[in-house]
């Protein structure tokens, strides 16, 4: 059984020294990168890249959307805008149902309340009424 203990008593770690160097290096790198992404130059560069991509892809995207829409119309099938409009209408219906549900809750609560909230006349008072007839 090999002795895995280093002379100082700690567990022998063959990559320990490397790990320490690595961590120190990464620490410096991390701080440098945080400064870099927090700079105007980074904001400008990423903005420019995104803008270039959007500008370059726009004609293709528009052509694709147009042709898809035309194909769906030819096939008499619903397109994305149709589904969007349908989904919006469904959400409106859902909201109305939700309001109705809330009203039903209110009615249910108000029906429960009177029986417990309204005090019954004492028996003597009720009998008094009967006796007067």
């Amino acid at each position, binding site marked *: 059984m*090999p*002795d*895995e203990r280093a002379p100082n008593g700690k567990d*022998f770690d*063959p*990559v320990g020294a490397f*790990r320490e160097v*690595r961590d120190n290096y*990464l620490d410096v*790198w*991390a701080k440098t*990168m*945080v400064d870099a*992404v*927090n700079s*105007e130059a980074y*904001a*400008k560069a*990423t*903005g*420019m890249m*995104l*803008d270039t991509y*959007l500008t370059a*892809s*726009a004609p293709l*995207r528009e052509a694709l959307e147009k042709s898809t829409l035309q194909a769906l119309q030819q096939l008499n099938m619903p397109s*994305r805008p149709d*589904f*969007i409009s349908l*989904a*919006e209408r469904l*959400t409106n219906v*859902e*909201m109305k149902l*939700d*309001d109705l549900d*809330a009203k039903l*809750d209110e009615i249910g*609560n108000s029906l429960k309340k009177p029986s417990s909230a309204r005090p019954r006349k004492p028996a003597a008072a009720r009998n008094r009424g009967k006796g007067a007839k």
Partner: protein
Amino acid sequence: MAEAAVVAEQFLELPEKLNAFNKAVTTKVPIAQTPKEVVWALNKAKLYRYIPVVPEEKRLPVPLLLVFALMNRPYILDLRPGHSFVEFMVKQGYDLYLLDWGSPGPEDKNLKFDDYTLDYMPRAIRKMKVISGSKEFSMLGWCIGAILATVYAALRPDDGLRNLILLTAPLDFSNKQGITFARWVDERYFDVDKVLEATGNMPGEMIDYGARALKPVDNYVLNYLKLWDNIDNPQVVDAWMAMNTWVTDNVPLAGGAFRQLVVDLYRNNRLMRGEWIIRGERVDLKKIRANMLTVIAEGDHITPPCQSEAIMSKVGSKDKELFRVRGGHIGIMAGSGADKITWPHIEGWLRPRSK
């Protein structure tokens, strides 16, 4: 000789470690396991009620509603058994509700803060009140969820909100130098309309990239090195996998809300300046009267502390507290120390105010 044997042994273990690492990185683990039921739904949004585990007579009478951000899954609040804020609060006797915004589709691209705060939240809260039987409630908003909670509290101050808890709330955008996102979405560099014209909603992947790029080495290198270095430690690996499952599960942000976030808040700071108009109503923070606890993460790079401090002097609440915690945006609630510092503090603040 002994050193050579150890090196050889470590070398032989390498394939096994690589397999374990690969599995950890690619496997989705079960999350959000605290039992719950859907009690309300509208479009993609759902209101969950967590099944109480404390007898009714011992439960706190004022229910608590959790409102998380729009562009992440809310199960970070219920990450895994034993490490879940939800589980902790349910065990403490709270009647707990979670508003899950779901994932917006192309049909939701026009959804704005107006819709979330004036159509969705009032309805969810109405249902919560019916189920709990309480006219009053507490609300905890985290990140963008804190913006929603704040706007709701200001627009509907008489709706029964007794306690408002804001976690890492991005509300003040005046310090442009201190907020990296503000620099990135500056109108000189970022054309929000052009992006939304192409994408409809803000894609989850772009939001994820933005969040990770704030600390690129930490998120793209150190995070994985931490896993590699601890691959033999099941506790670290389990925690890492749960967090990785959440981090990689992104949802888009509705286009209308993203535009407001960029134009109204990041660029023009309209909320803090008292100029934000939500469906014709001005959001006046002075109208907030609920008891308020603001929790700030001192090491937060997503919502720097400067964004959450000013709200304290703007609200009309008399009972208010600012609590600072060491840690990051997510770490203060889902990190290893959360159950010792943040959760007990929130619970300790809320309990006497929930009776």
